[in-house]
């Protein structure tokens, strides 16, 4: 037997010795393609929504070291010292979570003063003033990039899709599991600008047209907020996924997990969007591989960070929660 023949036999034996494995449903790849940055998978009975490119959401990217001088954070007129103290508590927690042992937070002349950190971030003030809003909203229909019309203002944002053919419908069986049809972008939405992060945060009960993180202008029309998770993060840790990318694993607190379960049940076989600071960072199809709903032990996994520092900043901001009183830098 020649060496080539022997290798043929060896490889055939090796391949045949491996266990047979059915491919995962192809519907998952189609769903990921539709949303590009989204992959939803069931892990150990829980839903892990894999989120791409959220590192940009808070403007937290790695860059040259910033001077570790004092940063003065101002509040609106009329804020009391007690309210400022509440912000200081969140801020100290946030800096501790980031591992910045040298950082100090104090109150002076009606402002919050941070000294000694965080020096490893390109834009430390974004981190210090971030008040991450994490919302869950149903996806109504899809839109392409904003195309402003030169003729007239589009008026108020549509509250629904222009036609039923554009409306995201429940998944249907496809042989491998459940999948949604491929929905076209609703052309009636192209003339509307995206909802700004401030509008999104101030009007959670309204319909919003949000950009999808990591895409080239794609947007989702999302319905009223079904669940607010901003202050319901029990823990957020930085880890590496199998492919070596930095991820943030968010675990909701017990109360939020139960609420998430109710929402997920309500939207079983439908798409829901996770909205972080005005961008859709994931829009998983709920349990596409299952014929019947099963309870979630939920966590959300966000990936696509450019550096460990960027992931750590998002994790610290999410875990420390929103600032009770907004802060800004003059």
């Amino acid at each position, binding site marked *: 037997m020649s060496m080539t023949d022997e*290798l*043929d*036999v*060896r*490889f*055939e*034996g*090796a*391949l*045949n*010795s*491996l*266990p*047979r*494995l*059915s*491919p*995962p449903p*192809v519907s*998952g*790849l*189609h769903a*990921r*393609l539709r949303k590009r940055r989204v992959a939803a998978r069931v892990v150990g009975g829980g839903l892990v929504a894999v989120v791409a490119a959220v590192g940009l959401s808070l403007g937290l990217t790695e860059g040259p070291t910033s001077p570790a001088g004092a940063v003065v954070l101002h509040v609106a007129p009329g804020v009391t010292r007690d309210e400022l103290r509440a912000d200081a508590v969140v801020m100290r927690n946030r800096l501790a979570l980031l591992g910045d042992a040298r950082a100090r937070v104090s109150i002076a002349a009606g402002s919050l003063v941070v000294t000694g950190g965080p020096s490893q971030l390109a834009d430390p003030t974004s981190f210090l003033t971030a008040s991450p809003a994490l919302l869950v909203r149903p996806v109504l229909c899809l839109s392409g990039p904003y195309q402003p019309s030169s003729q007239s203002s589009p008026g108020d944002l549509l509250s629904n899709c222009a036609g039923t053919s554009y409306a995201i419908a429940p998944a249907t069986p496809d042989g491998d599991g459940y999948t949604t049809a491929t929905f076209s972008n609703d052309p009636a939405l192209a003339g509307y600008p995206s909802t700004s992060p401030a509008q999104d945060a101030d009007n959670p009960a309204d319909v919003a047209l949000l950009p999808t993180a990591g895409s080239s202008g794609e947007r989702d029309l999302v319905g009223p907020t079904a669940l607010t998770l901003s202050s319901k993060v029990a823990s957020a840790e930085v880890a*590496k996924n*199998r*492919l*070596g990318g930095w991820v943030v694993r968010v675990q909701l607190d017990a109360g939020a997990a139960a609420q998430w379960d109710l929402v997920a049940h309500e939207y079983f076989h439908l798409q829901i969007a996770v909205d972080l600071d005005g961008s859709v960072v994931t829009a998983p199809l709920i349990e596409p591989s299952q014929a019947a709903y099963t309870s979630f032990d939920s966590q959300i996994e966000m990936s696509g960070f450019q550096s460990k520092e960027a992931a750590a900043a998002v994790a610290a901001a999410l875990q420390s929660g929103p600032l009770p009183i907004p802060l800004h830098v003059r």
Partner: protein
Amino acid sequence: MEFDAFYRASYERVHRAMALAFRDYSLAEDITQEAFYRALRRWPKVSKLDHPEAWTMVVALNCGRDAARRRRQKDQVQVVGGPGVDSSGEAGIDDRLAVVELLASVTDRQREVIVLRYICQFSVPEIAGVL
């Protein structure tokens, strides 16, 4: 060819090849999924190739190589097995170990050639065309 049919026909072979090449069943699953996803994204072009499976195989090998480098996988090698598989006394285990050893001992480029030759059953001219 429709992508879905291609996926069903080729998935298992690509996954097995990656399991042998990288000695990690979970990693193999991840990079196989990633490779098929990239094939789907470029399907209008990939479907016109003579060997879409070979293209997918090479993409998966590249993903695996990058992932393995990041993970310093040589320091955390797992025996190829798979969930619930008892390798003791299993038919083909000698072949499997020999193949794993062979694939671990060659360069990335050589590994691509060997996988295309002995798993995809390509001829040398076909391999030259793909690489």
